């Protein structure tokens, strides 16, 4: 059988942007049926996406991280060979607190020391920010952040914690000698109550830190943008999380968002090509996605992505981790 509407699955982070693209496509070309976007989470989406080629399998995977090698192999095993990877934008992992909060100046290193389970291999005993860095206030460490099942958490790990960790030369060396151990020491988050898993609903984190000015929240940048009046971003190495700083990577919390497209479906599913093209129309600086809180990727990346939309290069599995 066949299908006459595009189907995309995957990340809940990309979901609102994909929705907007779908809506825009449906308006632009009423003859096409509106694409179906399902928010399954990147992992579950990958499983669906890689299950095979055919009408019953999704055409597009939205991802808030890069495809993993294991997933690529799974795809290949099921006959999903030609995959096009397109980076559509950025998401910032922002640190924020209530409007009336003290406004701590953070660095990745401090965050690592405050939140890692075993900073530099030793159990974390820090109770207050002062314990981490004497120049910080003696406020207790209380951070609300995303749960381990979410992409934002993965980004936190990769973009902040590991970076902070690697500022220590020993750890950097460890990376080459014992990668698994390095992952553990640098990536594991403490679970003694200083870091609180706040569930998938980022709105709740916003509410929580609003209610507790001493707490810090970690979430996708779009939430900061949307709740500007109620919370404010915290500087990281002196850089404030803003649109500009995230998109030029001066704020260290930016992570790329991708869509993966099955080449084999391009000819078979009406509207798929148009949908991908629609992304490229909306992801620019003045595009609709930026208004929704997506951070626009730097110009060179965008240029590359635009080229990818045209040329549809096939993803090379050997680059993946």
């Amino acid at each position, binding site marked *: *059988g*066949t299908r006459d509407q595009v189907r995309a699955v995957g*990340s*809940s982070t990309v979901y609102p942007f994909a929705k907007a693209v779908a809506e825009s496509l449906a308006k632009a070309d009423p003859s096409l049926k509106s694409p179906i976007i399902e*928010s*399954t*989470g*990147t*992992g*579950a989406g*990958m*499983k669906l996406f890689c299950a095979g*080629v*055919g*009408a019953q399998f999704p055409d597009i995977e939205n991802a*808030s*991280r890069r495809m*993993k090698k*294991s*997933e690529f192999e*799974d795809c290949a095993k099921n*006959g999903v060979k030609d995959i096009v990877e397109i980076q559509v934008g950025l998401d910032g992992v922002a640190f924020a607190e209530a409007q009336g909060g003290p406004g701590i100046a953070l660095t990745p290193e401090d965050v690592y020391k405050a939140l890692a389970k075993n900073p530099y291999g030793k159990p974390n005993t820090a109770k207050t920010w002062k314990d981490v860095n004497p120049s910080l206030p003696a406020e207790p460490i209380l951070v609300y952040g995303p*749960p*381990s*099942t*979410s*992409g934002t*958490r*993965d980004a936190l*790990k990769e973009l902040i914690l590991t970076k902070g960790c690697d500022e220590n030369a020993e750890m950097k060396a460890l990376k080459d000698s014992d990668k*698994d151990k390095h*992952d553990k020491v640098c*990536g*594991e988050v403490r*679970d003694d*109550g200083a870091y*609180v*898993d*706040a*569930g*998938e*609903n980022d709105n*709740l984190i916003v*509410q*929580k830190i609003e*209610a507790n000015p001493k707490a810090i929240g970690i979430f996708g940048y779009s939430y900061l943008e949307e709740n500007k009046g109620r919370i404010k971003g915290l500087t990281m190495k002196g850089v404030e999380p803003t649109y500009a700083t995230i998109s030029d990577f001066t704020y260290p919390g930016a992570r790329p968002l991708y869509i993966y497209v099955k080449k*084999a*479906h391009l*000819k*078979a*599913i*009406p509207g798929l090509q148009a949908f991908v093209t629609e992304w490229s129309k909306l992801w620019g600086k003045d595009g609709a996605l930026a208004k929704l809180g997506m951070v626009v990727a730097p110009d060179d990346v965008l240029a590359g992505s635009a080229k990818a939309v045209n040329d549809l290069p096939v993803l090379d599995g050997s680059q993946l981790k």
Partner: protein
Amino acid sequence: MSPAILLLLAFGLSLFGWLAARSRAWAFRKSASGVRLHSLPNFHGWYVALWIGVPALLFAVLWNTISSTLITAHVMADPAASLLPGFGFERETMLAEARAVAEGKAFGVFNEEAQGLIAPYRTAITLYDSIGLIVTILVGFAGGAFAFLRLKPDFTARTRVERAVMALLLIASLVAILTTIGIIASLVFETVRFFGMVSPIDFLFGTHWSPDPMSSGAPNGKDYGAIPLFWGTIYIGAIIAMIVAIPLGLMSAIFLTQYASSGVRKVMKPLLEILAGVPTVVYGYFAALTVAPMVRDAAQAIGISSASTESAVAAGLVMGIMIIPFVSSMADDSIAAVPQAMRDGSLAMGATTAETITKVLVPAALPGIVAGVMLAISRAIGETMIVVMAAGASANLTANPFESMTTVTFQIVAMLTGEGSFDHPATLSAFALGMVLFLVTLTLNFIALRVVKRYREAYE
């Protein structure tokens, strides 16, 4: 041929057979007066109708599954098919497009290559449709003729039709068993895979839960200790919720059955039942947005600074409210099952209503009430939306009800809709958790039903 047409055809033929057989049976009666038919003419009708309808339907279903393969094979033999791309999805799509046009479901094709296939499709479809039609009719006729020839005045049509009815009833009730098997089958495979990666001992007895779905390398069994989840589940569902639901439910049942006037009962009983009818997603929203902040503020006001917005209390409280009608209706039933004579006996001794309830009715109904509570617990620990929306994600092993806790159902949803890949033990743990949940509720129900049964029998 659309399945609907074959279906209609089978029904039409059956109706025809029904009418024919019925009039034949009437004829028996008329011709030989004094002969009593064994079965009513209607039953003769049904007998023949079944013999026509069932084989025709079976054939129609069969034909429906094979005809499309036959049609495709026929089309592939056409020269136009050689233009198709060699293999795979595109080719399938084009075939499907051509077919859709040929069947009149679509007006044009999206790929030009499909254009040439429309005509071959038309011929093939016409051909196989007519074959299907004719064979269906033949099968129906054959069955009908066989049945029709057996009709005679003392033919036991009723017995036979009733046997068919019985078979239908039996099949219907087997659906339940199939469902149970389906549930077990859909859990067991992934569960086994999970236990291949994480030892069941670590899983069932470990006290630390922090699987990382993004981690690579061999999983650390130490991170898969599900005790905090079990604890959270029990604490929220079986302790906090029950502390709310049991007294309120039991006292409501007692008030409504023993004290309230029939007018009050008529109004209040259905009102309370509405509490059970409110969707859990609404409760979840209510818990997350209204109750949780209230609870946190209240707790902070009395000096519990660690109070979390996602406290176990908030979720448990709302869950308890949801369960009230469940407990009260079970208690109501059990109290009603205590014979009126017990109540009369006690009142005739000069006991007050309260004494009668607490000293006679409730003790006598206790097994039923306990069973009801067990069912309520199994309901509460399986509840998903409230905890997904209002309970936390942190697997705390704590007795402080104002802290955030997580539950089995929460983790199932989180893992299955999360970031991890599907071959990762963290994701697979959802199935193992589902299995545990299933087995626990199964046990609770099994015990509860046994208790109820034994105790009901005691009075019957």
